[in-house]
């Protein structure tokens, strides 16, 4: 179990460049084969999910209106929470990646879809689809490494306030919807003076408008509909939202923060070949093992590795290709991080706690290694568009 999270660069040399290229070819082949099968089956799956999610929401909200009866309140909160989880994860996140663009339905197109929580879809498309998936786990470029709130990599700065980060993490877990909503606003940079307040307006205004409508819906309109049952509807909606927040936090934190998951520094991006990009996606991600319901409820982010390799492949196909991806990684000596939920979650929390304390000798050793590797580097170019686009 390693604690060092600044990944040493893969060794140079034509042999390793060839190995990386071969790695890329095999993964590209899996992708092409999987994409060629995408069609009616995927459309039917999504429609089934949509029907399930919407019926669950109607049933849940309906039951909460009659929440004076405890079993109905419990069932209502549970069903509403399930519908929110499905909407955000299996439907929303995947549709926003453009996985279902092929269906030709403008309501399900990644560029148009808006999902049912406070984060505006435009901002998510920018911070997640673009920034996170391009600069995955690169400290200083991927804001998902800590979200500007937590120190998740030893190379990130430590201040005395960082000692309290387990509390921040708990707060983020309970209010994850709000955390995601303000993610693209880069509030931490505003607070430290690196970004002017005036720039907040452009993104902040649509976010607040959307959040206001959703808050009104859950905490004003639906309670009002129930008349005297308003407090119970309110409580039920709070429960459903917090439940969704906790679950989403756990799944997402298990994606890039368990034990042995690598973070990278900016030099990793320089002249990164396609094979090296694939390598960073695998090394920076972790899978969760579990039953089928866990995969569906996680939006198949339980297969974070496959998702990062092929973000536009319909997510429900990830379990089908996982065995093959795992086998390719094994043959190329690439670690494939996959453990049950409780172990990945424990690893993520260990990382939060460990990094609450200032960095230790491993950090210094790792930095020395990185500096040495940087000095000896010369890479073939895959594309410099990462730099250009940044």
């Amino acid at each position, binding site marked *: 179990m390693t604690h060092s999270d600044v990944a040493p660069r893969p060794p140079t040399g034509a042999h390793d460049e060839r190995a990386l290229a071969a790695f890329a070819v095999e993964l590209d082949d899996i992708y092409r084969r999987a994409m060629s099968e995408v069609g009616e089956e995927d459309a039917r799956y999504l429609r089934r999910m949509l029907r399930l999610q919407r019926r669950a929401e109607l049933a849940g909200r309906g039951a909460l209106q009659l929440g004076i009866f405890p079993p109905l309140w419990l069932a209502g909160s549970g069903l509403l929470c399930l519908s929110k989880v499905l909407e955000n994860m299996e439907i929303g996140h995947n549709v926003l990646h453009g996985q279902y663009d092929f269906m030709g*339905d403008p309501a399900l197109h990644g560029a148009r879809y808006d999902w049912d929580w406070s984060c505006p879809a435009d901002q998510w498309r920018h911070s997640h689809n673009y920034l996170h998936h391009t600069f995955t786990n690169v400290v200083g470029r991927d804001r998902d490494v800590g979200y500007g709130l937590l120190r998740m990599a030893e190379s990130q700065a430590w201040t005395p306030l960082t000692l309290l980060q387990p509390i921040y993490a708990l707060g983020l877990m309970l209010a994850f919807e709000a955390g995601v909503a303000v993610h693209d606003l880069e509030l931490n940079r505003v607070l430290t003076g690196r970004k002017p307040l005036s720039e907040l307006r452009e993104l902040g205004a649509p976010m607040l408008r*959307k959040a206001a409508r959703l808050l009104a819906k859950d905490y004003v309109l639906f309670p009002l509909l129930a008349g005297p049952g308003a407090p119970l509807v309110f409580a039920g909606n709070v429960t459903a939202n917090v439940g969704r927040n906790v679950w989403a936090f756990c799944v997402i934190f298990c994606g890039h923060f368990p034990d042995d998951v690598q973070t990278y520094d900016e030099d990793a991006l320089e002249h990164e070949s396609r094979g090296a990009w694939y390598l960073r996606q695998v090394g920076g991600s972790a899978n969760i093992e579990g039953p089928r319901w866990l995969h569906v409820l996680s939006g198949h982010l339980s297969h974070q590795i496959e998702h990062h390799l092929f973000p536009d492949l319909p997510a429900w196909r990830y379990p089908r290709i996982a065995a093959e991806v795992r086998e390719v990684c094994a043959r190329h000596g690439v670690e494939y991080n996959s453990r049950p939920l409780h172990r990945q979650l424990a690893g993520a929390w260990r990382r939060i706690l460990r990094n609450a304390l200032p960095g230790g000798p491993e950090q210094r050793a790792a930095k020395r290694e990185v500096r040495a590797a940087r000095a000896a580097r010369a890479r073939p170019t895959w594309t410099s568009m990462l730099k250009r686009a940044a």
Partner: protein
Amino acid sequence: MALSALDAHARIDAGVRAPGASALRLRGRRWGRDVLSWLAYPRSPDDYLQALNANWTLDRVVARIEAIQHETRDTTSLYLAPSGNWRPHRAGQHVLLTATLSGVDHTRCFSLSVAPRLGAPMRLTIKAHEAGRLSCWVRDTARVGDQVQLSQALGAFVLPDPVPERLLFVSGGSGMTPLLAMAQALVDAGYEGSLRWIHSERTEVALLDEMRSACVALGVTLDLHRTGAEYSSVITSRDRGHLTGADIAALVPDYRERHLLTCGPRGLMDAARALYAEAGLAHRVGQEDFQPLLSRARPPARDGLDDEAPQLLLARSRRAIRAEPGVSLLQLAEQAGLHPPHGCRRGICNTCKCTKRSGTVLNHLTGAESDASNEEIRLCIHSPITDVTLDL
């Protein structure tokens, strides 16, 4: 051009208005709709209704195929029963029909081939094209009971109001569809003016009986012209290429007193339009264009540019593809492997609107060129003149 003055929602003609609709009820309905929208946000109420039952909708119009009639070898009539929120159309208008084929939605424009009559089913008469996925589906695979989606009736190709005393219909091929609807509307309204109808057809004429009976009911003449086929039961026949303006003038000497309504192959419509334009009567022309807009278009030759075709660059997807003459930006993006949102594919519905970051494009509806940067354009009706970068 016919599509420049769009009236996106059909006016409800007197006589087919739902009885009992009062202003108060409409306002109450609108208020109720607003509340539902707030409760469903960010989805629409229809998203939830459809999850319960595919036939329940508020805004979307869904329709069940009630009957399928194969009129000729390649023309099929679909009789549709739309959901209750379908507003009656005006004769000559069209709809966007969306059908799901193997999980993928395909949307195309088709004219309604019947006049709006209370209680009568709506009908689309569709000619199958070689490469037309939806038209071939209609001919080969569609079954009674299948569900499709419709837009509300669209289009400004309708009988002028008030209806002129003297009319001239010039149609070719499947262009007779909206004109048949108009002829039936004239019959229903007891039109007593003078109508001449010139129809040219290469193969079998679909709905010929209905065209004839409408003409007989109006006491007017249907001129049928064959271009390249042999048939016996025609009023007059002439075996040559498409009719020219001179032919029309010869057939209808008093064309200057008639209002022209034309729909059909581009060459035929251009001939009819030119005839009227020469006589200074361009304002008395209504037309509807259903062929792919770009089939004739070639980017104009420019000095200083080399002969190499321009490139289309897709900024977000990081792809590039060479343009071909007559191919729209939408088609190029699809050739590059993308699936941009689109609807009618002919400049009406705005679904394919996308930001052009830079480059000069040709608008095939208006013929205008535009080199503005960061401009929103409809991909289906523009093609590149210079290298174009799209925000796709």
